[in-house]
């Protein structure tokens, strides 16, 4: 007998993620309007649709001797991996795919970003793209170990790699309360792997858009959707790992999860407008000298408490 997830849930997952991605894009547009001194009105809700249609109309570019296959594969992988990651996130109490190793699965999907973003930068055969790609690899080198330890810390607290179990283990006390460092490290890593806001140096203005310098049309749309979808997946995962998942009074579990996820997503989006870009060389130092020792200490404390 087929014992996997319901087909409708599998079909609905990408749609749901797209809706969250559009919400994130709208919110970012709202912050942008406010900063520019424009009225923040319903116009921002149309922003994601407008950009999507525009990018569908704009022609794709070709550069001189690109590795076209890998270049486009890189950008196209983003959304797919975001959906894969979201599959193990319990929406309320139930995930689309309940896995005994959900935490590892999420991490594995995230690791594919190393390849996806590197290829997006490298494939175009352009200086800006190449610099952006290298910047992302350096950034990944900085955030990856702290991220893994943050994931492991949450798993340690619940003595399970199953995200549903981790949510269940927080029925008494949310993990964020006694592992705040792990929560913060996870959010920093989320911004970094989604190359968003302060961690957008791989695609920053000083390098003419870095990995995105040569990407146009539908290819750019794919990367953009993938980026927002990853922010949404990460926000949903952070709620499951640290903010008690669907736990809360009165409202149904799925609604609690959604409310918390939107709140985290809003905070992630906001960082783009609040902070300048952090140069990768400076982040590298901070990650290895501050973040890594801090998260090791955090997991040690959690391990002692659990013992």
């Amino acid at each position, binding site marked *: 007998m087929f014992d996997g997830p319901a087909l409708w849930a599998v079909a609905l997952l990408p749609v749901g993620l797209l809706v969250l991605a559009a919400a994130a894009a709208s919110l970012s547009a709202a912050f942008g309007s406010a900063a520019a001194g424009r009225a923040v009105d319903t116009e921002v809700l149309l922003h994601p649709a407008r950009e999507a249609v525009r990018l569908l109309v704009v022609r794709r*570019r070709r550069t001189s001797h690109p590795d076209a296959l890998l270049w486009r594969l890189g950008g196209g992988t983003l959304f797919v991996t975001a959906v894969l990651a979201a599959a193990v996130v319990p929406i309320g109490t139930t995930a689309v795919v309940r896995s005994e190793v959900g935490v590892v699965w999420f991490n594995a999907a995230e690791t594919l970003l190393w390849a996806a973003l590197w290829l997006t930068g490298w494939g175009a055969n*352009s200086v800006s793209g190449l*610099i952006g790609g290298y910047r992302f690899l350096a950034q990944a080198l900085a955030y990856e170990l702290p991220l893994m330890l943050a994931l492991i810390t949450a798993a340690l607290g619940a003595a399970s790699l199953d995200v549903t179990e981790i949510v269940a283990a927080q029925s008494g006390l949310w993990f964020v309360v006694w592992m705040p460092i792990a929560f913060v490290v996870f959010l920093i890593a989320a911004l970094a792997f989604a190359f968003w806001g302060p961690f957008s140096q791989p695609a920053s203005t000083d390098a003419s858009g870095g990995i995105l*310098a040569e990407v146009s049309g539908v290819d750019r749309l794919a990367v953009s959707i993938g980026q927002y979808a990853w922010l949404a997946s990460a926000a949903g995962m952070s709620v499951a790992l640290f903010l008690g998942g669907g736990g809360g009074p009165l409202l149904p579990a799925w609604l609690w999860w959604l409310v918390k996820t939107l709140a985290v997503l809003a905070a992630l989006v906001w960082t783009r407008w609040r902070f300048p870009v952090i140069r990768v060389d400076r982040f590298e130092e901070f990650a290895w000298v501050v973040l890594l020792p801090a998260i090791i200490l955090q997991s040690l404390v959690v391990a002692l408490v659990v013992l």
Partner: protein
Amino acid sequence: MDLTRFAFGKPHVLLIEAPGGTGPRLAVERLARERGWPLVDTPADADVLVVAGAGLHEPAQLVWDQLPGPRTRITLLDPDRVEAALDEAARSLLDRAEQRADAAARGPRDEPMQEMGGDSGHDMSAEDGDGGSGDDMGGDDMGGDDGGGGSGHDMHGGHDMGGGDMPAGLPMADRAPDRDGLELDILHVPWGPALPWWPAGLVVRIQLQGDVLSEVEVGRIGPTAPAAPFWQAAADAVGSGRAAAAARIDALTRLLAVAGWSGERLRAQRVRDGLLGGAPNEELVGQLERLERRVGRSALLRRMTAALGPSAGARVTEAYRGWLADAGGFRDGPPASRTADAQEAADQLADLLTGAEWSTGRLIVASLDPELTGALQPGAHRV
């Protein structure tokens, strides 16, 4: 069609400034901000190419060839005509016949460029027959958008297809010892003059190893038309204190853009436009105080701009703090001139940049403030 009208309701603008284009550039930045038209980093994301000022014909053409299309371009000389020109650009994007003709003139899909010109007139228009080998060889344009092999000025005999050392017509990267004594590939890449958030007319030719600028040549292009007349006229219109403050905040907007802080960049633009547009003093004082708090005292921005190597040091941090301090006193008349400092920095630019990394190099250039002083004029230094 309505869907297209919707899609291009807020066209993306690539704004580049030619010498003397300060007036139209400020007008474009203000209108784009008010209308919600994003100012973008790369031709790949642009629908409209706007050249503020005259004299960048050839570099602008190289950028133009990289816009994917639908696309349109405008050259602006008169600030008063900017609004109408932007309206016309938006209309042109929706003009199907016009866009079809443009696309047809460019050859097959996925091959946006046919003819490229190196900066010194190399004939790069050889039909190479393999689907776009000439693409994106824009030597002089966006910082480093050209192919991996090097830029236009290094393309001796660049269309010798399939020659031994030139796979696909691109020269192989040379090698040279880097600052740590390792043999590394070198690439020749130009910064400017047709680059957003870049001092008008400045060209910096860099030799790149990894992302380190191992050799730097500073020059300029375009007519001799420094920004001074614009700020002089502004001083006559709104008072010298306001004009001087606006010039400093304008320099700040560029630095914030290069530092990747779009939120504060937009807020700084509002302050600048308010200073030039006659906003009430009390409002401006509040906005400037807020800017000083958020930007001037930002620990993060300080960390990103301080300790940029032996020659640049904390120059960038000192620059934006100085601008903010000067602008804060806009009611007391113009602040003390920084011309001497700025001129000195401009003269030393090549030294400041040599050995810097790509991102810090861009920050150093953005801290130069040539608008304010008319520094970087021809003759100030040799190429």
